[in-house]
Every structure is written in C-alpha cells, then in structure tokens.
C-alpha cells in the first residue's frame, strides 16, 4: 500500500473539524469532505461493484447519506472509518438488489458478445508470459477485477479494503463489524481464493 493513501493524523483532524463545521451549518465544509474523499470512495465502490456507472451512482449515494446522517456521527472514530462503513453498506445493499443483478447479467451478455470488451473471461489458466506481456494495463485490470467480482461479497469487501485501499485491520474490523481475528482469518482465505483465480497472472 502506498504511503500517500494512508490517512495522516492531520488529515483526520481536518476531517473532524470539517464535520464539526458542517454540523454548525457550514455547507462548504461538506463540500470539502466530498472533494477530499470522493476518489477513494469512488474507487472503493468501483472495486466492490465492478462497474464505473454503478460506482458513480453509489458513490454519490454514499455522500448523500453522509449529508443526511452526519448528525449521527459521534466523533468516536475517524471520519474515514465512518465514511467507509457507509460506502461498504451502500455497496452491499446494491449488490443484493435485484436491479443490480439484472444489470450485471446484461453486462455479462454484452461482454460475451464484444470481443474487445475489457471484461474478458476471469479465468486465465496459465497464460504464457508473452500473452501477459502483450496485455495492456487496462486488460490486466479487467481480468483482476473480474476475479475480484467472483469472490463472495464479504471476501471481496475485506480484500478490497485491505489490499487495494490499504485500510488498517482495525479500521476494517470497525467498518465490517467483525473482530480483528475474524478479519485476519477471512482476509487470508480471501487472498488465497483470489490468488487461485489469478494463478499465472501474478
């Protein structure tokens, strides 16, 4: 995980200050929070939902929920932890929705019909190095995202939070409402599942 993704203490303090200002009626403080966190939330939603349009919709929904429920924030955790919890719940609800499933089925059919789609078949059994070398970053990203999409929802969430977003174990435990040991054991299992799916690719 790159260092620049780790929220610094100063950033945490700044987040809390903006939350306080927003609670006192400063709407620009909310905008600052959105601008600071929108890309991470958007990327998290993308990785959890596997689709740009869905990610855009749900990331917006996350901030709408933040706007509406900011008064419920108790300052007992960092704002980012609270924000990720909302994001994970929003995506989880979306994943369970029939509309999402229907839409994903349609996307899958489109991907099968479009040979140039970046949603290639997720299983890539022992590809030769030459194939991997010829892959663009986008194609490789698509393969990995497909493998992530194929994980069970909980495994996917933990892997994305930890291995892509670089969120600390403790924060993941707070976001997912699991204890630390459960997070670690499930993460180990999820990693193994993902590595099995990506065998030969990484």
């Amino acid at each position, binding site marked *: *995980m*790159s260092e620049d993704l780790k929220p610094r203490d100063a950033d945490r303090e700044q987040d809390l200050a903006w939350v306080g200002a927003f609670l006192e009626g400063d709407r620009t403080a909310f*905008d600052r929070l*959105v*601008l600071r966190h*929108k*890309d991470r*939330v*958007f*990327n998290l939603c*993308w*990785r959890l939902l596997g689709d*740009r349009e869905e*990610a*855009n919709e749900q*990331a*917006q*929904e996350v*901030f*709408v929920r933040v*706007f*509406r*429920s900011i008064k419920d924030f108790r300052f007992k955790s960092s704002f980012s932890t609270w924000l990720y919890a909302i994001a994970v719940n929003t995506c989880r609800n979306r994943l369970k929705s029939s509309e999402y499933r229907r839409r994903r089925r349609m996307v899958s059919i489109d991907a099968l019909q479009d040979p140039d789609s970046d949603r290639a078949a997720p299983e890539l059994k022992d590809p030769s190095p030459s194939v991997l070398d010829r892959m663009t*970053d*986008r194609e490789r*990203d698509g393969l*990995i*995202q497909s493998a992530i999409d194929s994980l069970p929802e909980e495994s996917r969430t933990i*892997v994305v939070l930890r*291995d*892509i977003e*670089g969120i600390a174990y403790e924060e993941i435990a707070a976001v997912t409402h699991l204890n630390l040991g459960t997070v670690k054991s499930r*993460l*180990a299992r999820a*990693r193994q599942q*993902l*590595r099995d799916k*990506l065998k030969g690719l*990484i």
Partner: protein
Amino acid sequence: MDCTRIIDLLPEYLEGTLDGSEKRRVEEHLAGCEGCSAELKLLQRYFQTMAGLERHEAPADFLRNVHARIEREPSWKSLLSRLFLPLKINLPLEALGVAVAALLIFTFYYSAPETKMDLPRESPVARVPGTAEAPMPPGTLAGLPAPAQPPSRAATPVPAPARTETHPGSKASAPAQDRFAAQPSFPGEERGAGKAKPEAEVPAGAVEAGRAGPVERAVTETPAPKTETGPPQRPDRSSAVLPAPSALAVQRGMSPRVVPDELTLSVELRAAVGGQVSGAVGRASSDAAERADSEVSMREASPVPQAAPTQEEARGAGRAGAGVGTSEPAKAPASPGAVPGAGHPQPRAKAGKPAKSPAAEPPSETVSGTPEELPRSLSQPVDAAAEVSKAVRSSGGVVLAEDIDRKTGRLKTIVAEIPVEGYSAVVSSLERIGSVRKHSGLPPGVGPGGRLRLRIEFSMPPTAP
C-alpha cells in the same frame, strides 16, 4: 516454526507489522526454506499487483451531482422526521397503531361472510321514513366490538354521548394531527366524519348487525311498527336489529344485492312432530349454523306488520323480561349504557340440547292465531327444523336463519331462500309435518329462474284438554 505457521505470518512480515522476535524467526526460516521463499515472492507480487491497480477517479462533476441529488431527493427520513418530530416517539407508534387498526378493520370487514348480511330483508328500521337522514356512525364496521358510540346526527332527544377520541395524541398536537389528516384514521375520527356525508344517504337501517347504536335510538322516535332498542352486543336471536341487506351492501361499498321477494307460510305442526330444536337440528341446519352470529328475531325483522303480539310473545316478554322491542312498539328506547344481553339470559338453544317431548309442552306456548284441527298421521316424531332444512337444501336453496324460542326450545320461524322451482317441493315437505297456510301470495315479479324468500312460521296445535 513450521512452514504453515511461517506462511501465515508472511503477509504481516511484508506489511512490516510483525514484532522483532517474530520477524527474526521468519527471516531465519526463509533463509533455509525455498518453498516459503517462493511463497513470499508470490505474495509480494500479489500485493504489488493489487496496490498497483489503476485507481479510478470520480468524474469531475461528482460534487455537482451530489448536490443535485441532495436537492432532488428529499430524504424519506427527513420527511418522516418532519412528520414525527413534534411528538418524537409518539407519532410513529401511533402511526403503527393506525396501520394495525386499519389492517384489523379491513380484515374483519372483508372476511365477514356475505351471508351474514343476508338476513331478513327490509327491517322496519330501514323502512322508517324519519330515519333516512340519520347518518351512519362513522367508522362503524361489521364484526367489531362496539366502542362508545359516536353521536347520531338524527333528530333524537337521546343525548348524544361524547365523541370518542381514540387517538390520544390527536388533541395534544394539532400540527401533527393536520399532517395525519390524509392518513388512515381511526374509526370514529375525523376521516369517518368526513365520510358521513355520503353515508347519510344510506337508510338508517344500514347499521351493522349487532350494533344497536344511535341509529336505533333514533328509530324509536318514529312511528315504526316495531321498535328496536337492542343493546350493543353480539347479535342474539331475539335482540339484534338487522338492517336491510341492500342498505348494508351500500354501506359496504358493494352494489346492492337484489333481495328476493318474500312469501310467508304458516305451518301448524302435527303433535307428533318435534317442534323443538335438538342437537340433530343444530347439526343438520348447517346453513343456519353458519349464520349463527347473525341470527335475529324473525318477528322483529319481519316486514309483515304484526297486528298484535301473540300470546307466546306476550308471555315470553313478560316472564323473561326480554321485551326488547318484541311486543311493545311504544317502549322507551334503551339507554346507551344498557347492559348487553340483560334481557337474554339464554343466548340461544345450544346444539346437543335434548329435545323435549312436544306433549310435555304447555299448550298455551304454541297457540297460533287461527289454529285448526290437524290430522296426526305421523307416528314417529320428526324434527321439523331438520326436515325443513333438508327440503330447502334439496330444492337448491339455503336456510338463512332459524328462530327458536329460547324458553321452550321450539322452532318458531325459518327463513330460507329457494329457487322458485323448488317452492312446490318445500311446501310438500312442510305438508308432511304440518298444516300449511299461506299468509301472503306469491310475490309479484317472481318468475321462473327467480329466487324466493320463504318465511315459515311454525306453531303447535292446541292440546286437547
């Protein structure tokens, strides 16, 4: 440390979260284990791959879209808050209460069998001209226990009881009440009052079965041939006031059912015929049993004016104190707080009750208006009610109600609805158990294929001294 334990620690080793001693042990193991070293490299590559995935950035108009969404979609939560905040916790609970009450009302209302309403048509209450303006008690519904009655708007000297407020918070919070104006309301609340206007078109007799409320009290002020002062209670054979089915249908929002014309027959039973209700009768008369909740006094509901109370009625009213409108047209109305069933110590003849021998009955109990000598050809006692019910059913008809004298257990009246074509068969069966006399001719307009409502009044022959 074995390889399995080392492999478990490798992620934390790569993340740099192992403490010093564990980190040293892992490094010592890796130095001598090719398998774990290979695993370390794969895991390292996995981490690099995942961390190196393209980071997708939110669109440039993301914040604007969030703003638009916040303004476009008023939160249901904030909407509810605006509704409920004035009373904090109370209103949501009350709203739940409203929902539950509405569900219960709906369930009871629409699960009530249609046949409950198909009791004797054209009750005198419904015919009283002066009561046509009496509005329905708001929210009165079949099958519900009668709470404090909402006041009747009919011109009646009976002081109207205070309007019942079942919504404890409705007065406490006027704004909240206003917001709930369009919500499903409680029976008897403003919503019901609002509906009273169309319901005022319903004849006053359109009060629900088993409800003897202000409408009945209003009726007592009119020149009705019969008065109804039944207390609010579950219908009893001889106490409940029944509305005209068509009026009920209107009240229930249904198209009024066409009520067949009625023909009254008088049957004087032969002495050998069991006039009493036995357990067999109760079981055999399944049609009537199904309508047990709607059983009523046939005489009270009869459209045929009773010139004078029979001896039986007079005696029954005098002894049992059950003169609930049966033979006293000018009787003062019962007070609203009359104890339900005060005059009805015996709700009705119970199934399984042993039939008494007709010969043991006092003759004066069964004297009809114009008795005539009848042959007594039947050697075996026959259960009259069962016979008639059987005949009605075999003719394709249904028994709508039975009226049984509570004191003697004797069958007094049966109301049945039969196809016109089955009339002869039913009369034949009646002639087998007694002497049949018509009180009224075949009603006009009854033709082939029509339905005919029969009121069969039974009496016992006078006993020879």
